[in-house]
């Protein structure tokens, strides 16, 4: 009979070991899944995890790692701040979309003027869009006690409709022969989020992501606010007695994740995606939830988790074209990873004890 025993303190070793263990378990079960789909499991795992970095065409895939990883880092760092305080913003996808729409609108408003001020203005617009969209659940929670999970998620669907509406209407390319979608920002030099170093995938979003990671790290290790956020999450009553204003924490956490998600949308629309279109969003906002957990809500952990997730995206694409592995299989793979992670978390807080007799206490 296996028994659980509460550890007096969460185990630090296990906190680092569980994500790795979860990845290994996911690979095993993912391999089983691929075998069920009639693919060679070993081949599939190698294609997904090895090919993009060390394979034959890796010079093409490696930059993609940064391109796909940057939005994940940006969003996940923001989400982790909230998750630490027990504030569940799961509508990052919506904030990402609205940030992108605002940024694209700002950029296109100046078209075809060229100026170095346009890009910074777009950055501000993107951050502002995400902030506004995240403030809706924030203010409603503070003022009316509304559940932020449900409101932020409902706003994702609203944002998707908004996206469809603007790409068919307000932001539609007047020279686009009636096709939905905005002008391509990649062909508009002032608004284009170019690669800073050619062929590395290193664009401004990557820089922003690194700044966000450092900022968040400093916040949690050096700043009073970061401490207040942690206490709010771990012991809400203690936080209140300690003079922490819960409304402030709620607004800060949602605001910060909104700004970062909006920025992610901005860098995406101005760079890799290039334009606002109906299928602009690809689920970064939801994947970032997995990333935040996989990175143990720790900014530096999130960087590694994002790179791993980006790898599964890229590897998934390769597996799709080479092995005919369905795109959804990668989604299942990512979901599985989160499951194993949550289940294995048990080991950080509890000790497994195998005993034949009932323990007397």
């Amino acid at each position, binding site marked *: 009979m296996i028994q659980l025993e509460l550890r007096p303190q969460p185990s630090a070793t296990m906190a680092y070991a569980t994500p790795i263990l979860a990845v290994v378990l996911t690979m095993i079960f993912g391999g089983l899944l691929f075998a069920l789909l009639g693919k060679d499991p070993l081949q599939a795992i190698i294609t997904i995890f090895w090919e993009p970095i060390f394979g034959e065409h890796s010079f093409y895939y490696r930059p993609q790692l940064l391109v796909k990883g940057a939005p994940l880092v940006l969003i996940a760092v923001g989400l982790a701040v909230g998750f630490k305080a027990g504030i569940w913003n799961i509508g990052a996808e919506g904030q990402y979309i609205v940030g992108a729409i605002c940024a694209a609108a700002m950029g296109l408003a100046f078209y075809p003027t060229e100026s170095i001020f346009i890009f910074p203005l777009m950055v501000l617009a993107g951050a502002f869009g995400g902030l506004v969209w995240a403030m809706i659940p924030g203010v409603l929670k503070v003022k009316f006690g509304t559940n932020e999970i449900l409101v932020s998620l409902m706003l994702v669907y609203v944002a998707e409709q908004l996206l469809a509406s603007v790409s068919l209407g307000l932001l539609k390319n007047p020279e686009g022969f009636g096709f939905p979608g905005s002008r391509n920002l990649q062909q508009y030099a002032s608004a284009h989020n170019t690669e800073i170093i050619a062929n590395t995938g290193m664009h401004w979003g990557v820089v922003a992501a690194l700044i966000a990671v450092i900022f968040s790290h400093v916040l949690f290790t050096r700043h009073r606010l970061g401490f207040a956020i942690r206490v709010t999450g771990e012991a809400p009553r203690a936080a209140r007695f300690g003079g922490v204003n819960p409304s402030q924490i709620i607004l800060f956490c949602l605001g910060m994740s909104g700004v970062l998600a909006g920025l992610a949308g901005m860098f995406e629309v101005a760079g890799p995606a290039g334009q606002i279109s109906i299928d602009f969003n690809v689920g970064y906002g939801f994947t970032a939830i997995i990333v935040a957990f996989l990175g143990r809500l720790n900014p530096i952990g999130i960087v590694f988790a994002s790179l791993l997730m980006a790898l599964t995206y890229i590897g998934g694409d390769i597996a799709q074209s080479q092995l005919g592995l369905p795109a959804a299989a990668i989604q299942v793979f990512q979901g599985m990873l989160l*499951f194993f992670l949550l289940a294995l978390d048990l080991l950080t807080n509890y000790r497994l004890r195998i005993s034949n007799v009932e323990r007397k206490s």
Partner: protein
Amino acid sequence: MDLSAINPILLIAAMIAASTPILLAAIGELVVERAGVLNLGVEGMMITGAVCGFIIAVNTGSPLVGFIAAALGGALLSFLFAFLTQVTLANQVASGLALTLFGLGLSALMGQSYVGIKPPQMVDTQMGFLSDIPIFGPIIFGHNIIIYLGLLIVAGTWATLKFTRAGLVLRAVGENHDAAHALGYKVKRIRTLAILFGGACAGLGGAYISLIRVPQWTEGMTAGVGWIALALVVFASWKPWRVLLGAYLFGGITQVQLNLQAAGVVFPVSSIGITIIIICVIIASWNLIFAKKKSRQYYFWLLFLSIAGVFFTIFFQGATVPFKVEYLAMSPYLMTIIVLVILSADKSRAPGSLGRAFHASQ
């Protein structure tokens, strides 16, 4: 403006049909939450139910077998959640999210070779002469069996929770799991059963969408219905009959906006003003009847808003803009947010142990 294309009797019948998936999912979640567990994976269980039901119905040719498979599929997925939250004591919010993400992926994977296929048709139950009664016939008696099953589950849940010992135990576990444990009830077993029931109901709701309402399979076709169902449980203050009321309200909005989309109706700007007035009146009367007394200033603001609404209405009388499909499609989600705002003030009805993990050693 072509509102004559909308037949009010058929509209009401369609509203009842449209509300069924939300109703089924919400009543299942209500039981889960009354047992003290917050399962945010409703959307994932619904979509899994939708695809399981669809596949089995297509392969067996029987929609009813499809529905049974959907319930089993939903329950099976929810078992994963039960394992995570009851055995490994994982965070319920995170586990629910994981369930939704996993369910969306899994369903897309399972259903990829079923895109574009038509499922076997579900025959409406024949009620003989009853369906021929004018007005009431089509509204009450013209539906398929799943709609009546939904109503039956609501009634059954209400009766079980209110009158039976099992219902009492379930509520005890939800209100205070430590006390229930001290009395010797198996908290985990009861919660697991509740979670399975919730999964089965969500699965049925999902299959209703893929087999009857749409009827075909597309990825992510539940489009947030599971989340609306979660909001509905809050809306209903965890009471079964109010879930029914809420489901009809949401189903109604969904159906009306679909009909408006189809009819290509133009939007009278003045209706914004009218809506403001109506909302103010509803809030004022709700507060006067149910809630604690508010200050005079509060009602003054409501009065001010409604007068502004009147002026707005008069000023924009006759002005119209064409409805954009996208804005209509937003309405169920926006409505959910508005309802959450209005009803969130009263949390006193929430089960005491909602969302808290239970382990005997703590």
